[in-house]
């Protein structure tokens, strides 16, 4: 593939849930190969909706979706997109349904037509890559929240996607798991889109940050200028300007 080839392109997408007001309104967006983007936005601004539209889980009322250069329209087109783009759900509990970790990770490759031996081999390799060796026979349902998230990531990566969409990959996770995920994402050579409320996390994993506002997506800046953390100070003791991104906070 050529340099900067476009992976996904959304053109003038409109969307509203049945009976609701418009969520996305003439949204345009492009993901280039290898690009690492962050998306922020208020609750309910439509971030999850946008990802679901890319994956073909929701159908926009108007607009076109292009993936790998060609328009995506039929069911078959979307099946194809789903094989090439990995999607990590907001809640790992929704993503894992096999009894053991190994079976869960091998599920995708089996659907792609791999033989059981091959699928198992791919699953083992992915586990190793994510430092999850020894997890293969663990019961998925009984893993901790952070472990579930890592296994969910493994189920996506094993399919060797060309790009990743990650919906709030770190909510509810503790610092250790956070750091593992950051290290992992930085070691990937594919592009991804991360939706998150955590600036700090975005700053450490992405290059450009966009935000979703009024149904559209706008460029927000280079992530290197951003950082966030909880801090305390007595009023007036330390001088720093509180430049916030939106006026509400």
């Amino acid at each position, binding site marked *: 593939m050529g340099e900067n080839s476009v992976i996904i392109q959304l053109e003038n997408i409109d969307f509203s849930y049945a009976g609701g007001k418009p969520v996305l309104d003439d949204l345009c967006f492009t993901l280039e190969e290898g690009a690492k983007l962050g998306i922020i936005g208020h609750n309910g601004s439509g971030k999850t909706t946008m990802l679901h539209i890319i994956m073909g889980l929701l159908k926009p009322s108007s607009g076109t979706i292009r993936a790998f250069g060609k328009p995506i329209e039929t069911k078959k087109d979307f099946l194809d997109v789903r094989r090439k783009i990995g999607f990590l759900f907001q809640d790992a509990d929704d993503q894992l349904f096999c*009894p053991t970790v190994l079976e869960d990770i091998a599920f995708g490759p089996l659907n792609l037509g791999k033989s059981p031996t091959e699928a198992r081999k791919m699953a083992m390799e992915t586990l190793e890559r994510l430092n999850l060796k020894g997890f293969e026979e*663990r*019961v*998925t*349902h*009984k893993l901790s929240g952070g472990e579930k998230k890592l296994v969910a990531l493994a189920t996506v990566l094993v399919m060797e996607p060309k790009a990743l969409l990650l919906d709030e990959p770190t909510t509810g996770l503790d610092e250790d798991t956070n750091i593992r995920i950051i290290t992992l994402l930085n070691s990937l050579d594919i592009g991804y889109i991360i939706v998150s409320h955590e600036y700090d996390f975005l700053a450490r994993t992405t290059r450009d940050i966009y935000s979703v506002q009024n149904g559209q997506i706008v460029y927000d800046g280079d992530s290197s200028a951003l950082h966030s953390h909880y801090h305390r100070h007595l009023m007036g003791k330390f001088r720093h300007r509180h430049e916030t991104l939106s006026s509400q906070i």
Partner: protein
Amino acid sequence: MHISEGILSGPVLISGIALAAAGTAIGLKKLDYDRIPRAAILSAAFFVASLIHVPIGPSSVHLILNGIIGLILGWGAFPVILVALTLQAMLFQFGGITTLGVNTMIMALPAVFCYYLFGRLVGKRPHIAMPAAFACGALSVFFGAVMVGLALTFTEENFLKVSYLVVIAHLPVMIIEGIITAFCVAFLRKVQPDMLPGYSKQTSFTPSKETAGD
């Protein structure tokens, strides 16, 4: 698997109601008040699962799952199936009022029967448990189809041939239910073995640390 309104005769309908009431009474007696939420929410899962359509050849069938519900709930299957059927009638108008008793019997009696036949076996070693689970799923559908046939034949002797057809038509469903029940039992044995009967006595199949303690 149910019989619509307007087909069965008075005596069959009344016997169905009487038998279903007896079964439900036993089931309720075994269901303490503090087990009601569990039975109800499992029943909701059962309701949703039985709306799933699985492909078979060029067509698809919806699952019945009375075998697995029997394994999980034992006699509790009676009230749970009665309630699920009532809801199906209220929400989709499947089944009906007069046939509620017969339809409950059709699904719940095989469920309880299979619970007694296979309940102990599904907790044993895999080479016993898996065939037992398959048989449980398949036979609970088979017995259900036989009960449909009996209800029809008792209504009208001339329905005998229809009854044969009903049983034959359920053969593919039996096989699928058998397979699904076997995999489902395999799943529960690994993930939550205490949901299956006979688990407390038989722990040898779960070497993992998480479950060894209790």
